[in-house]
């Protein structure tokens, strides 16, 4: 497929890795904040291709993983309500709630339907005017315009039986929270290319300036990631802390203006809780006041705030980059994708699932 295969050329990847090894003079820790990049790094062994001085830290780049347990519980409660259809992206079905998950609710007779696009959920609402149809809207900035469009069209077209359970999160506030943490060891970021396709990269300029960290907007294929790492290491070695754009075939400085307009119309910025991390100011999106009628929390009652007990799972430390999956004593033994103890093993983009799938369970922590 054009714009994919050519960015996976092993010989070209090796040349980038050699060039990084040539310029690096001391240890650097670089964080990627996108589960898709984490997945590609582990799948293609990009971390193993890099010189030992460069450590890639996997950040909280998976919206599925950071959705609070109370939202999962609410979705399960809504799904179990007679006369409703709960629609969701497939990734959410196996995320553990307090007692169960959406897949088990579906097996017990709840009408839970996986959709590819939020517009498919809107179509289901149109096809079933006698039922309440709820879309479980999660995601980063990449997904927010699509979910916003479903709400926008529901309002414009008067689809009164459609509503959204919204748990949207924003990337830059999470990067700030990581940099503010006393245990932070991140020295540079690969910013998520598709988040920036929507938002552009101007909001990263003050972060790079204030914290003196290079931020390189980076794509998802192996050559993109290696070029992003090369650009980031170059900046670190030269003492620069700028925002650069590796992924210019997709990302423009100002982002996608029509998408931002619909996001601003439908959503407002709110304080959000991130599973495993805690509350972060202005780090999420909720429906704007004009869309109150389409808020599932308005129709089915507000989401609780029980907090979470993750038991043995260290997903919070994984999501902040403090630990890597093989550091966890349960990894690959008591915790597997078939029997996950926590979210980073459930989601296909979670760091634990990526390590389990591509590295097997036997990776010793010392090898990291």
């Amino acid at each position: 497929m054009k714009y994919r295969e050519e960015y996976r050329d092993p010989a070209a990847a090796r040349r980038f890795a050699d060039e990084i090894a040539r310029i690096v003079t001391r240890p650097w820790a670089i964080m990627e904040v996108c589960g898709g990049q984490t997945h590609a790094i582990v799948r293609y062994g990009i971390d193993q291709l890099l010189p030992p001085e460069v450590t890639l830290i996997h950040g909280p780049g998976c919206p599925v993983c950071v959705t609070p347990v109370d939202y999962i519980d609410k979705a399960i409660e809504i799904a179990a309500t007679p006369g409703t259809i709960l629609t969701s992206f497939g990734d959410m079905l196996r995320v553990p709630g307090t007692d169960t998950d959406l897949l088990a609710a579906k097996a017990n007779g709840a009408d839970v339907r996986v959709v590819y696009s939020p517009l498919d959920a809107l179509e289901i609402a149109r096809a079933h005017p006698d039922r309440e149809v709820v879309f479980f809207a999660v995601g980063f900035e990449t997904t927010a315009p699509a979910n916003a469009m479903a709400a926008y069209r529901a309002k414009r077209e008067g689809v009164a039986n459609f509503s959204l359970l919204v748990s949207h999160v924003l990337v830059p506030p999470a990067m700030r929270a990581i940099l503010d943490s006393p245990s932070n060891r991140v020295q540079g970021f690969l910013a998520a290319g598709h988040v920036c396709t929507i938002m552009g990269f101007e909001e990263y300029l003050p972060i790079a300036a204030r914290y003196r960290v290079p931020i390189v907007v980076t794509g998802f294929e192996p050559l993109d990631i290696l070029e992003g790492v090369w650009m980031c290491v170059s900046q670190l070695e030269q003492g620069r802390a700028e925002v650069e754009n590796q992924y210019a075939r997709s990302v423009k400085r100002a982002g996608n203006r029509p998408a931002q307009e619909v996001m601003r119309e439908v959503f407002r910025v709110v304080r959000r809780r991130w599973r495993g991390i805690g509350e972060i100011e202005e780090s999420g999106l909720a429906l704007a006041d004009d869309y109150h009628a389409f808020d599932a929390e308005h129709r089915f009652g507000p989401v609780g705030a029980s907090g979470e007990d993750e038991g043995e799972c260290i997903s919070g430390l994984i999501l902040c980059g403090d630990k890597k999956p093989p550091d966890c004593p349960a990894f690959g033994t008591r915790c597997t994708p078939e029997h996950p103890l926590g979210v980073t093993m459930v989601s296909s983009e979670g760091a634990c699932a990526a390590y389990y799938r591509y590295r097997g369970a036997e990776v010793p922590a010392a090898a990291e």
Partner: protein
Amino acid sequence: MCLAIPGRVLTVSGDDPLTRTARVDFGGVVKEINLAYTPEAAVDDYVLVHVGFAITVIDADEAEKVFAHLDRIGEIEAELGGR
């Protein structure tokens, strides 16, 4: 979750900017994709698609730059006597 895949626009249909769609070819698999966020997309353009929406038109000139970068590295290595 932020996965977006590139595909080629085969045809464009509709007048309403919110519901305008394209048939997009992803290496043989063809899907109907919403163009509300890429009003500039035209036939034969490559678009990046996420959950049923085209979120950008891929810039063909910029797409070559990663390879130009590699060529430059090759020249530098030649200049320095290789590795």
